[in-house]
Each structure stands twice: as structure tokens, then as C-alpha cells.
């Protein structure tokens, strides 16, 4: 399971303040703790606080000075993504493009040129479809575009869009079915990713909803998640699910083993 740590996001007040006040320590701390918790990528999102590429680079450089974990550049703006890619060591992840032509045309070639991976969200001109077929149509469009630009399938993540359970309850089962069908879109399939925390937005028992859904989605093919890696029960559930799916060999200390990476 590829875990993308969501916590360096200016939607959170501590990150917003750190970005506004240029407080390195807060960012270093979040980077280190997420890496220690098993994050495979660290997502960096400036939210509404800044549209300045220099601020994105400032965040990226702090994270890279602190840990080796690859960066997930959380922006759909090519004017931010391109300089951010230049600033990244290793192979970053672009989070994200939609299925809109003007985004695909700019962002996928950027990924190819920088050996980066990219998340394609199944959302287009008319927003994010709620049914299974609408999600698959956008996924097919993203997949085809990635293929045309020569992106390796292993560098493509499709995100079929998690919607809040509290407000759109019927969406959860549609989403599971979409993941199931996406896992057969090609052989090998692209990665399938979700922003898991959207599922529990404004709900009670957020952690329980997130981990229950994540495990159910893993069973039908989800192999990446943008999530709160500080949620210990969530990570333990991932470790357990990987064993149940026979992706990891069981041993009695499997939780500890999973955390050893």
C-alpha cells in the first residue's frame, strides 16, 4: 500500500501559520513524524494561503532537508507544478490532474519530462460524476492520455474520488464498484488512489469510517491512499489487510514488521 501523508496542508491551521510566518520547525516536525509513521510520499498543499511557487519550493526544500521521503506536489496549476518539480529530488508525485483536456495536456507531459508520477482524478468539465460509469469514462480518458504521452503505467494513479459518507451515503458503494472495475482497466493496472479522509468529512467516528472504508477498498484493488498516517489504527488496519490479501507474509510481530517498512 502506498501511503501519501496528507498533513502538510495549509488547510490545517498549524501549517497555515507556519507558511505565513515561515516557521521551518513546524514543517520539519510534520515531515519527520509522517516519515516515521510510514508515509511513502509527503503531500504538500498550500491551500488558499499562497499561489506563489516560491512558497511551494520553500516547503519542498524544508521537507527534503529533513527526510528522504518523496514529495507529492498538491496543485493543479502548471505554474506551480513545474518549478516545484524542478526543486524535487528523487521521483515526485503530481497531485493531481483532472480529466479536462487543458490540464491533461500540460500536466502529463510535465510528469513524463521529470520522471514523476501523477494522480488523475475522475473529474471533468461537469465535475466529479457520482455513478460508476461516469468515473470509468474519465479514468479511461486519463489512461489514454497518459498512454499517448508515454507515461509508464506504474507512474499513473487514478483517483475515483471519495465523497463524504455523511452527505452522499450511496456514493461509497459506487466508489467500491468503480475501484473494482478500474483494477481491470489494464494489465498491469495503474495505481488506484483515494483521499481517504474525504469519506469521513464532517462525520462522527472519522477514524473508524476511514479505516473501515480503506480496508474494504483495498479488498477490491485500491493500492494507494492520501491519508492521515498519524492514525495508528488506520495504519494497523492497512498492515492487517495486506496480510489478509496475501500481499505480505504473516509473522507474529506483523504490526511492528510493517512499521519497520
Amino acid at each position, binding site marked *: 500500500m502506498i501511503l501519501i501523508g496528507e498533513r502538510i496542508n495549509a488547510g490545517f491551521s498549524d501549517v497555515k501559520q507556519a507558511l505565513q510566518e515561515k516557521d521551518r520547525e513546524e514543517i520539519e516536525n510534520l515531515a519527520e513524524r509522517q516519515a516515521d509513521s510510514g508515509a511513502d510520499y509527503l503531500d504538500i498543499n498550500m491551500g488558499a494561503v499562497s499561489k506563489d511557487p516560491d512558497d511551494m519550493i520553500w516547503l519542498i526544500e524544508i521537507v527534503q532537508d529533513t527526510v528522504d521521503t518523496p514529495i507529492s506536489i498538491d496543485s493543479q496549476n502548471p505554474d506551480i507544478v513545474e518549478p516545484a518539480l524542478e526543486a524535487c529530488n528523487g521521483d515526485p508525485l503530481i497531485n493531481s490532474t483532472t480529466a479536462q483536456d487543458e490540464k491533461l495536456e500540460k500536466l502529463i507531459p510535465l510528469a513524463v519530462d521529470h520522471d514523476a508520477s501523477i494522480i488523475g482524478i475522475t473529474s471533468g468539465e461537469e465535475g466529479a460524476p457520482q455513478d460508476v460509469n461516469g468515473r470509468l469514462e474519465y479514468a479511461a480518458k486519463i489512461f489514454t492520455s497518459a498512454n499517448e504521452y508515454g507515461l509508464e503505467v506504474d507512474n499513473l494513479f487514478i483517483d475515483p474520488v471519495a465523497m463524504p459518507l455523511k452527505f452522499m451515503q450511496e456514493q461509497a458503494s459506487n466508489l467500491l464498484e468503480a475501484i473494482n472495475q478500474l483494477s481491470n482497466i489494464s494489465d498491469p493496472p495503474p495505481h488506484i488512489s483515494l483521499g481517504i479522509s474525504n469519506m469521513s468529512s464532517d462525520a462522527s467516528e472519522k477514524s473508524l469510517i476511514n479505516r473501515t472504508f480503506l480496508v474494504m477498498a483495498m479488498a477490491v484493488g485500491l493500492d494507494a491512499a492520501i491519508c492521515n498516517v498519524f492514525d495508528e489504527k488506520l495504519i494497523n488496519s492497512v498492515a492487517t489487510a495486506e496480510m489478509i490479501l496475501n500481499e*505480505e*507474509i*504473516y*509473522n*507474529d*510481530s506483523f504490526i*511492528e*514488521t510493517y512499521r*519497520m*517498512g
Partner: protein
Amino acid sequence: MQIPDVSSTWENEINSVTIGATEEEGGTRSRTVTIGGETTMPYLHFEGTMPNHPVLAFEIWDVLPEDWPQITKEPFGDVMGNPVEWAQKCEEDFEPDLLSLRLMGCDPYGEDRSPEEAAKTVERVLEATTLPLIIWGSGDDEKDNEVFTLVSPAAEGENCLLGTITEDNYRTLAALGKADDHKVIAESPVDINIAKQVNTLALDVGYDLENIVIFPDSPALGYGIEYVYSIMERTRLAGLKGDRLMAQPMLANIGGEVWKTKEAKINAEERPNWGDNRKRGPLWEATTAFTYLQAGADLVIMRHPKALNEVGRKIERLMDSGGK
């Protein structure tokens, strides 16, 4: 009809483990032996590489092994019972890649030799030989911990392979191996889950996974070998897929298991239709070794020179075949 290409490629490689240290490296061995490093399942040279030949070791004991069948004693004449001369004879006459010394004399239910005696034996064997050395205890956890407490520092600098750590007894030997720069054998009783657990425990007490050789036990041909074959196969697949707790080279220690089977030791007078046991016994040992090599063994510890010779030639053929 076009035959589809079903070859696989793996992103990860098995750890390479070097045993022995030359003078420049702080030891006294004439050469070192490196095992592991594969990027393919065994001998599929068209899928990946096997940079190191699988290697063979001779088993010697610090005491006379009373219960070994006569035909395993004959090649060594009267040097058995003297580990120094036995080791020298193995090295000079039969040319294995390594020597494997079992300190059976320390068995509390046998001669119950002291840790001091064991350390002296190890020092003398090291002085008299030049090949890299594997050292086993007698198999009694408590006594082995006392024995290795003196044996490990006595062999400091020689980069030996010490065995074994198990799920129930790993702290002492892992600490000694780390302190004195030895490699260790992680033993698990025909159980892949325990194999992974032992490595987790070793890592947990600070022992480096890069210095471990996995030993999943080695039943003889006809006595459950297929269970271990599939465990070794799964272990290697997991290692190649990126499970770093399963990416260790593997060892088969077959002599003791082979030479207690009736197929290997019953003589031709007792079973005339089974043929000459002087041929049959070594053949049973060699066939057992072949099987473990195909399962992924990187190091096989053997007893009979004829079997060792045959298996050595087989390894050459498998390595030179280019996968054909």
C-alpha cells in the same frame, strides 16, 4: 503459433552476505565467500542474475561422531575426533568452499565440554585452516549461549557465520555477532511465518538484516523436503518482490538429515534390491542437495565427499547453462 514470453523481472535483489575475512580485512582466511545477490528465481539466467555461485561446505565435529554411518566416516580415515586434522583433511583433499564446525562436544547431555574448550577448538581450527568457517553450537540453547559468549570473541575478525538464532533464543547470539562482526544463521522449523519473525526479532535487537542467512531446516529427500522447498520458494519470491525481511540468502544443512534415513544408510546385504549403499548413500545426499539448490539454497552443508563433488559439478552446469 508464437510462444508467449512469460519471463518475469524483479525490482529487488537478495542480500549479498560475505563470510570470512582475509588478512587485509582483519582475518586470516585465504579467501572469502559471498552468497546471495540474486535478481531472479534460481538459475533463470534469462530473467535476472545470480552474481554469486551457490557454495558447498563440509560438516566437521569437535568430537568423534559415533552415530554417523560407516560410509560417511571412511573418506576421512582416522582424523575424525580430531577437529583440527579433520578440518585440514577436508580443506586439502576435498576442496569445499567453506568448513562448517559443529561444537557437538558441548552438548550437556554428551561430553558437556566447557565454553573455554570450545573456544580453544575454534582457535585451533582457524589456525590450521584457511577457508571461511561456519560455527554451530550443540543445539542446547542455554549451553550454546554460554559457548558462543567465548567462541565469538575467539573468532573475532574472521567474519564467521554463527548458528543459530531462533524465535526463542536470539538475543545473545545477535549481540555477539554484532559485537564481534560475525554473520548469523536465523533458524525456523519448516515455517515461513517464524522465519520472518526471527528476522524481525533480530532487527528489533539491532542486528543488521544484511548479515543474516535464513535456515528453514532441511529434511532429507523423501522426508518432507517438499514443504521446505515451497517455503524457500515463497521466501525467495517475497524477497524479490521487496520484502526486506525475506531477502536473505538461504542455507541447507543436509548431512544430519540425509544420513539418518534408511535409504541412505542401509547396506546392500540388508536390502539387496536397493543396490550398493556406497553409491546410493552419496546419491541420496547429492539429490537432496540438488533439490535445495533448485529451491534457492545459496549454501549447502554436506558430509560425503562424493556427494559434494557431484553437487559442485552440477552447480557449475547450472550456472553455465545460460538458463537453457
